[in-house]
């Protein structure tokens, strides 16, 4: 009878290390002892520029959170995308631009509604929020993508912001922006699609940058603390890899044996 399930000992140890680092950093930052500065993420700075441009041109902003729902293991990207939606809605309300949001999975419609409305409330323009700007286009990949493509084209949107988990439709969305000459800010952590965003959009958020967006935009010390902790986790990963490589070269298998536990 094992205490920890077979084959998961090293995994549990890693989980404990990562959790501990993130939580400790989070609480240090919350206490105000040390709040680190975050490096600039160009893609997130560009959102304000995009919203501003759309306002100037009097054309709408298109926003999607990709094929994200809450019932799949990619929901963390959807949550990140919704956080940025809240921020974009706040900016759009402040400037008075029209923001169109296209939910994919109907399960997130209430959340998107709430996040958008909160953004408008923060900007002090609750009355400007129009639920009709959340347009459902069916919860299947290509009808949805074609719907977004067509609507973007007809509305001649001036800014396309796509943040969340994307699959094959990523390039369709990127091309939609090219057709209307829109400024495009896109981000995803689905690594088989990031390259499309890097190639075809103006600003791309790569992988982890998407998940860091919520903390980055909120400027909340607690959330920044969690990023700080995540940095330590990455440092730990690098350290384990370097030590492990050296040990393996020296024919010491202790670390390898532990990782295989």
């Amino acid at each position, binding site marked *: 009878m094992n205490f920890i399930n077979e084959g*998961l000992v090293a*995994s549990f140890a*890693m*989980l404990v290390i*990562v959790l501990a680092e993130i939580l400790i950093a989070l609480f240090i930052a919350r206490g105000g002892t040390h709040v680190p500065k*975050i*490096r600039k*993420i160009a893609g997130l700075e560009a959102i304000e520029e995009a919203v501003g441009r759309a306002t100037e041109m009097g054309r709408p902003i298109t926003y999607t959170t990709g094929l994200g729902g*809450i*019932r*799949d*293991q990619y*929901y*963390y990207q959807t949550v990140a995308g919704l956080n940025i939606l809240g921020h974009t809605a706040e900016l759009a309300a402040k400037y008075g631009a029209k923001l169109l949001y296209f939910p994919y999975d109907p*399960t997130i*419609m*209430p*959340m998107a*509604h*709430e996040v958008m409305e909160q953004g408008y409330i923060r900007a002090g323009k609750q009355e400007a929020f129009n639920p009709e700007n959340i347009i*459902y*286009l*069916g*919860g*299947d990949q290509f*009808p*949805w993508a*074609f*719907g977004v493509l*067509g609507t973007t084209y*007809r509305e001649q949107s001036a800014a396309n912001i796509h943040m969340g988990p994307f699959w094959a439709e990523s390039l369709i969305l990127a091309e939609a922006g090219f057709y209307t000459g829109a400024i495009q800010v896109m981000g995803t952590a689905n*690594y088989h699609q*990031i*390259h*499309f965003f*890097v*190639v075809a959009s103006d600003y791309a958020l*790569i992988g982890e*940058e998407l998940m*860091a967006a919520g903390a*980055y935009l909120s400027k909340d010390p607690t959330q*920044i603390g969690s*990023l*700080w902790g*995540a*940095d330590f986790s*990455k440092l730990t*990963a*690098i350290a*384990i*890899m*370097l030590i*492990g*490589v050296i*040990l*393996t070269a020296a*024919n010491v298998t202790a*670390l*390898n044996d532990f*990782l295989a536990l």
Partner: protein
Amino acid sequence: MIPPNIGQLPPELDLFAAIFGVFATIFIYSFLWKENPLSRAVEHLFVGLAAVFTLAFMYDAALSQAVWGTNRLAEGNFIWIIPILLSLMYFFFFSKKYFFLYRYPVSIVAGVMAGMMICGMIQSNFLAQIQATVELPLVGAGVWEGWPPAGLNSIIMIIGIITALTFFFFTWEHTGALGISTRIGRYFLMATFGSAYGGTVMARMSLFIGRLRFLYETSYQDWFWAWYLVPIAAIIVILVALWDRSKG
């Protein structure tokens, strides 16, 4: 989930499907030239069908879990009424006052998924990747033979992984040694994206080739060939485009 067929459909429907397929294909491709009434019509048709398809998909999945699964409602396990009732809270989407009730089903789903995701991420995206890096061969028989030698590959990979990972440091300034490392890391990321893009072209082209083969090779009982319709569809597209332009 898909049960055996009930009833038989007349075979003539296949002919209809082939005709529809050709027209839909050409109308959608006409979007490449310009957004036009035909592509718009196909788009609206497709979105309508998709909304019902999504509903059917979700409904059937829920039904097979809650009612027909082992030891579920159909076998008299009435506790499965609870998730069904909870799911009904979603309908308060249309109410202003009780809107927040959707949070109850969502909170359960989000929690379950967060837990599953954390474990899966640590195991396969974190630990397994570290493990694989640690075991890259550097010394040993045959490691430095051939071209490129496996040892050199290992060194390149280790440098690439570590420098690219430093690119994702958010709370430390990218200056000094860290700055150099992130610069190298960016080149590795660019190489990753370039190779991924180049490797993807094949996949996208094969989809188009598949469609062309549908247009060129589909037949119905050897007297009707799909490509007969291609010029007709093309003429319709041109006529409609002219009509649309004259309308302004």
